[in-house]
């Protein structure tokens, strides 16, 4: 019961944050110089047609009216129509969002499972050469720009070795009946590998280093000695006692990392031509597709905040000392 109340309270804060975000974003996009219509002048949109098109998009109304209309729409779940696609923003974003989510979730899963394992391994072998090497590698990878790593992986594995596709999400000409059908296909998996690994490499260092530090802390604890005294196997002590407890601080950074990964998906999606939200936001801003950009921005913000919430709940679940 307390949990539900807590979540409700958090959700209301989320709603408020989103509203502020929405307002900032709405006005910010209008401040960007340029408009969504005049960029088509060269392709044959003459003076009168430009005005008609502004009217068609509802951009002839005063800014405040536009804002009120937009907010009203959002409250009814209507994010307006994308100028570029002439489709409801939600329709366009929905799919892009799932694409981004699939990519970031995969990469975060890889990053955290590898990071946690590697971090605890390094801590277990503390002060050895492996530890030093691993720590330094993690640091270096963390500092390498993700788009650069992506470009290099692309050059090596897609271009030189030709093992994996050069980008995109599916092979040209492939035919899938549904989203799920698509994401569980081998073809999709092949396209997913490089971007997911690139993104994972970037997100991996933080959990690795944190897990290592946390493990080093935990290893000193008395309950680890007691666990050994209990005659538990090395493996059991390491996994059941040390890792399980050391995991807690790592969980708290999950939200931060997830937020970074979703925001940073712009870069990975650009390098690998992944049709996701990040790339869409760049395109929408470039073409001054206000509803699209606003919607995409809101979605990304919403996801970031949700991950924060998720991490808090997860933390409370994992650490009995914390109650929500």
């Amino acid at each position, binding site marked *: 019961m307390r949990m539900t109340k807590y979540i409700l309270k958090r959700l209301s804060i989320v709603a408020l944050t989103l509203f502020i975000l929405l307002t900032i974003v709405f006005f910010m996009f209008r401040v960007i110089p340029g408009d969504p219509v*005049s960029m088509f002048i060269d392709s044959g949109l003459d*003076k009168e047609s430009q005005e008609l098109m502004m009217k*068609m998009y509802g951009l002839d109304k005063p800014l405040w009216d536009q804002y009120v209309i937009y907010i009203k729409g959002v409250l009814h779940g209507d994010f307006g129509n994308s100028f*570029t696609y002439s489709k409801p923003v939600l329709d366009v974003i929905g799919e892009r969002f799932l694409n981004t989510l699939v990519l970031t979730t995969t990469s975060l899963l890889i990053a955290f499972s590898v990071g946690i394992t590697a971090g605890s391994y390094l801590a277990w072998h503390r002060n050895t050469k492996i530890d030093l090497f691993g720590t330094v590698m993690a640091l270096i990878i963390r500092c390498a720009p993700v788009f650069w790593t992506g470009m290099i992986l692309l050059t090596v594995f897609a271009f030189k070795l030709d093992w994996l596709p050069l980008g995109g999400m599916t092979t040209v000409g492939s035919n899938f009946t549904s989203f799920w059908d698509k994401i569980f296909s081998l073809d999709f998996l092949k396209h997913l590998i490089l971007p997911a690994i690139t993104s994972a490499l970037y997100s991996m260092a933080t959990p690795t280093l944190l897990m290592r530090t946390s493990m080093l802390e935990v290893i000193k604890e008395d309950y680890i000695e007691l666990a050994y005294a209990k005659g538990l196997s090395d493996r059991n002590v390491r996994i059941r006692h040390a890792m399980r407890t050391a995991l807690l601080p790592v969980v708290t950074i999950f939200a931060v990392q997830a937020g970074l990964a979703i925001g940073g998906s712009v870069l990975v999606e650009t390098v690998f031509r992944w*049709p996701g939200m990040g790339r869409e936001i760049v395109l929408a801003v*470039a073409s001054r597709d206000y509803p699209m950009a606003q919607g995409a921005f809101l979605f990304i913000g919403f996801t970031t905040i949700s991950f924060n919430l998720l991490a808090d709940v997860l933390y409370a679940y994992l650490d009995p000392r914390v109650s929500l």
Partner: protein
Amino acid sequence: MKNLKKLIASMMIFVLIIGTFVGCSGGNSKEVNNDSGSEDQVNVVENVDPSLKVPVIDLWLQSQTKDPIRYEAGLMIADNWRKLGFEVNAETREWATMSAEGMKAHDHDVFMVKWGGKPERIDPYHWLYSMHHSDEAVEGGYNITGYLNPEYDKLAKTFATSLDSAERQAAAKEMQVLLAQDVPQPPMFKLKLKNAYNNEKFTNVTPGVGLGVYSFWNFMNITPITDDKILNLGQTNDINLLNPLATKTGQDLYMLKNIYDPLVRLDVKGDVVNWLATEVNDIDDTTIEVTIRDDVYFHDGEQLTVEDVKFTFDFAKEIKSPTYNAYVRNIESIDIVGDQTVKFNLSEPYAPFLTNTLSQVLILPEHIWASVYEEKGAEGVLTWENDEPVGSGPFKFDYWRPNEEFALKANKDHFQVAHIDGIVRTPYTQSFGIVQGLIAGEIEMTSYNMMPLDLEEVAKASHVEIVELPDAGSYIIHYNMRHKPFDDVWARRALTMAIPRQAILDIVFDGGALKTFTLVTEDNIFWTNPDVEKLDFDLEKAKAELVEAGYQWDVDGAIYYPENFEPTPIME
């Protein structure tokens, strides 16, 4: 704690030092190069009145994302203008910003645009009338440079309204002469478009003017060699919208032109040929009678009638379609005068009515659009997605999975049947995907313009053949005659002569383009005037003309106006 304070203080100083050092050194990466001025020390004045200084030119460059060519070319142009003593401030803008502030608001000093050579621009109405007539010099108008020339306006009027094509041709040639000497917004280059197709699977490729292999006629004529009769097309962008009344991108329109039929079409050379129309008669200056075929059916089986024709034009006007507005604006009314005949009454004479109106308006099925209108109203029609377009054209809509595939299948019942069974169009979003796709055989054709590095890549694949076709559009540098120094024809001419055309061709285009001196490109034989003045790169001559006009330079080589200067907007 004390130590820490010292530490902070020293760090702050350190930061400041870095800031100033790095910041200062950041500014001087480009130095004004005055070596051309040193040879002939004409009109160098020691104590020149600073108020006479020619103002800084703001050169807006396209950011590299959209077009690296314009960016690189712009840098080279700026360098050469500086050699004449002009102070040039090159800065980049996003396309959306540049078009709103330049193309629309005409607030620019100078920027470059690549204007597409669409088939409907073969009749040079757009280049010669829209872009230079004084009526269009208002905000949002196409006369971006603000060219005001009564003599030109007179010629333009004749060109726009006369039904005598010889008279129009003569006017057009005369107008080109004026433009070439006044250089209000000179064209610089036209691309040598290089499209590619798979010659092991298809033959009989007919590129059309302006669109290359993306031309309607190519889709009609291309012939499969193997049993695979589906043409796989690779493009960089996806289709956006299939509503002909609301779409704004060429990519959508060119596909819609396969699905829907206009009354007439422009052939591969840009000449008008009958399509739905069997007969087009000019009754007088403002009355045109069109008779249509009686054997055309929409893809849902309904016959295409004169009612549909009348409906389409009336409807576009009624709902204020931004896309069709320019076409239907000067149609006063349409009368049905026979079973297969309609009569268009124009509000004023409009010479390119066939090329610019009848060939562009796609005939819509009244039975579908009227009910959409009833249901959604005028605004609703404009935002309607028309996800499964029903037209009468030689290709039927098959399916569209956004970002993945867009497919058409041949309409075997059409009065002209294509040789292929269908078209599948795939968006690649990045050109190297297209190139790799061509080599791997994923796609068989693309209208993407191959760059030198791409050509190197496809050269290895024997099945990829390149089709070359000069572009009918060009890279135009838009001066703003409302701003100094572009209000003076001598400055414009000198600046034009300081554009290092050959160097840009060699370095930036890497041989992928040609110089051009008239907006009506040389391949447009009927309309072009090959004998116009060609202001090619010639710094000496540029300088000489400036000297003659009285411009002067200070000892540092910066350029100044003569005393009591009055700009000469156009040549006498």
